[in-house]
């Protein structure tokens, strides 16, 4: 009977030249485990995971499994204890995970040719608001208190304009601040006149109907925010990490682009540059998160 070999054994054997299987059949029996953060219908996400992990497995040559975590914290915990090797994550959770467990950024999502986006402050075109100062005493809807483009970065523009001294003092400038629960909810509240302004992603107006889109505009735009990132636990084998990145980069090729829809639907991926997260780290500190 063959002794049961785990991944570590096989990698040692490979290094010693005793395993001669050609790549990409990496000698691993333990699966590569991917943690996904639920953002929409879990039924669909499960189907997507099945499709993309099957393809990744064929590309990398090791079994690839995916599972859905409850939230970012659970994903980071899974990375910490080795239940997950890789996770998909926003820039802010990543910098916190980096502090917590030394997570490593592997890939950044690309949208419209860039791995970054911005936050904007939107108003109705007929509102007469032309600058941020016009919103003094007015009601604003943000997406969520821990959203980069849906709160932190747009609010930072009020700070930059000298209207808000710190995040904690924002209530003093506005009439009411609402956290609407997401970009679309914040934008709809603004478009329907329930609030005077909305802080959301630069693309959030595309969540409105075409008629509404023509009725809104934006009066401030934030610095660039790194787009979502694929991260790995620091202990993950370097070669496996590289093979995973190489496989994911193939998704940029025309013949594989259709699979991007299984992964939150970016336009593609680039290898992550850790330095682009400095702004997020600074922002997290200003909001007392880091």
């Amino acid at each position: 009977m063959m002794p049961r070999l785990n991944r570590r054994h096989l990698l040692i054997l490979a290094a010693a030249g005793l395993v001669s299987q050609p790549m990409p059949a990496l000698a691993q029996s333990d699966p590569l485990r991917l943690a996904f953060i639920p953002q929409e219908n879990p039924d669909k996400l499960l189907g997507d995971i099945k499709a993309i992990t099957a393809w990744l497995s064929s590309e990398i040559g090791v079994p690839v499994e995916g599972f859905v975590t409850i939230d970012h914290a659970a994903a980071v915990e899974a990375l910490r204890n080795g239940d997950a090797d890789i996770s998909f994550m926003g820039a802010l959770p990543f910098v916190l995970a980096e502090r917590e467990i030394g997570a490593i950024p592997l890939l950044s999502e690309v949208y419209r040719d860039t791995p970054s986006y911005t936050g904007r402050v939107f108003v109705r075109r007929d509102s007469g608001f032309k600058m941020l100062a016009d919103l003094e005493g007015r009601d604003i809807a943000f997406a969520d208190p821990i959203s980069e483009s849906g709160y932190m970065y747009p609010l930072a523009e009020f700070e930059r304009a000298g209207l808000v001294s710190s995040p904690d003092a924002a209530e003093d400038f506005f009439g009411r601040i609402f956290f609407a629960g997401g970009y679309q909810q914040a934008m709809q509240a603004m478009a329907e006149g329930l609030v005077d302004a909305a802080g959301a992603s630069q693309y959030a107006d595309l969540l409105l109907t075409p008629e509404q889109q023509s009725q809104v505009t934006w009066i401030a735009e934030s610095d660039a925010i790194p787009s979502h990132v694929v991260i790995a636990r620091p202990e993950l084998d370097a070669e496996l990490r590289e093979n995973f990145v190489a496989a994911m980069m193939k998704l940029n090729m025309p013949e594989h682009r259709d699979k991007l829809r299984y992964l939150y639907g970016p336009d593609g991926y680039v290898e992550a540059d850790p330095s682009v997260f400095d702004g997020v780290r600074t922002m997290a500190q200003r909001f007392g998160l880091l």
Partner: protein
Amino acid sequence: MIQHVLRVILFVIVTSLAVTGPSFATPAKEAPWLPEAAAYRLTLFLGNLAPVPWYKVEQAWSEPYHGSEYRLGALAWLDRESAVDVGDLTDAIGWQDRHAVHVAATRLIALRIEEELDAATAADNPAVSQRAVATAKELYRAFADHIKAADPDAARTLGRAWLELNNATGSAGVLGAGAKEQDSDAMTTARAVISAYLAENYLVADPAPRQTLTAVPEAIARTGQPVELPAALPPGSDIFDQDPLPLLVLNFEEQGIDETDLPLIAYGDMLFDSAEIFGGPARDLGIACSTCHNRSDINQRFFIPGASHQPGAVDVDGAFFNPMFNDRRDDPIDIPSLRGLRFTGPYGRDGRFASLRDFSRNVIVNEFAGEEPTPFMLDALVAYMTEFDFLPNSLVTGDGQLTEAAPDAARRGEEVFNRPFVGMGNQSCASCHTPSGNFLDRKSHDIGSVAAAYEGSHAGALDTPTLLGTLYTAPYFHDGALPTLASVVDWFDETKNLGLTDAERSDLTAYLETVGAADEPYEAFDTANTPFRLAFAELTTFASTLDTLLPKRDAQHILVLTDTVAADLAADAGTMANLSSRPEVYALAERLAEVGAAVRAENWAAAETSWSLFKTDAAAIEEKAF
């Protein structure tokens, strides 16, 4: 969250499109519906058809809606997710009691909202609260647009209550940082506003029967005051363009003639893309000729529950588009291609119209409830549509012979195609699909593909369709019953006892696929030729007819044009790759709307000025319009 936005870009809410003002021919996709909310809206839609298609009402609750991202139907979903009893609803559907179904379904949705609100207020952590509130709000969507139309003040009050409620759920933070506790008092206060309205309007003991099933609040419905509801298609509807987009081949264009030099044709082109020539609900939903006949061809994805039995099909004389024209027969047909239209008369699947002009009028007035078109409009439409050419195909000559480039299997199949068969009355396929006549004979034949409507019926004859371009127009037959050309061959072989061998079937299929092929069947988009640039070029070409109409002071036709093109330009701006140029496109659309406003005010000088500025601005934008 960015990926969520860019993904959800494709799911904007179409149901909130207002009915007032010009319609958009660019539809907006809607966010996915929760299963029970989708089933409720489908029930309202289907329940207003005459006769009510009860089996579809039952399906609305038992099966996932068309295109749903949920694998469960509403009843199974509720069984898994909810404790709300569905017995009243299923009983009512079984009784086929329209009023009882409306009452039970409405009550069910209201109870589901209450159930989620209970969960939200009982939860001891923000994440659970937020999920429950989000679900409740998604369920409230089933009522929201009707509340807004019927009771706008209440809609605003409720909108703020939902904002307050979500805001009070706090935040779980991220990885333990930035957590914010729930504000239970604020949640209770906000929830009370919502619950009171539901109790008063959606959980009443004995709601009044309604002539039209709606989600209008009971307090308003009981007053009997008319409510103008926004036009909406039910969940599962798909009126977006086919992807890939068929290539449009216009005779004049292939000869290098500029459409802007052909004002009648350009105006007809505009009408073909205009929902303004139809009446409600097609007009309000932005449905135009081109919605079904994408780029003169077909739209394989077109689907409206209750009007379509499968994608690419529609019943144009059912209850939805024009109740006056409702034939009370559930007989949707596969959307036919209009390529080579000037060669394919008579028109209609059964060839009932000898004249394309008469056929077009029937589509506008009867099928889609439009106003009587002017002679100029019909002339323009016919002038445009008769420019539709077949797709160039280097495998077939103009007189229907295979070229040297055709594969051997097709040559063998050509022999089968021309072979007389006893089972077909000693006729061959080519007897009707005459190769030298664009593979049709302009006659109607009963080949046995139409089920007899009644005993002794002789109403099964259908117009012979061309075979040109058919490789891209699946499914086949008038009702789209056959999915492939191979299945068409099989059908003839089996029903007409042709006795073909497997090889002959394969060869005949190869012949059909060769004849039905094209050198370039689809529009090739790239970074230079984007969908928006194509739309921009079309819309500015349509507008060019103002050079002819303004000097003639033809207000009626100018207004059809400006209402169509200004709205479409603004709507299409959201599809631009170059999003930074959207404000300029909005301004351009407004410039054209100003032409219309000036014409309405009979201020022709102002109209001329705005039109002149439009042309200047359009030229400046053109390079950035991608």
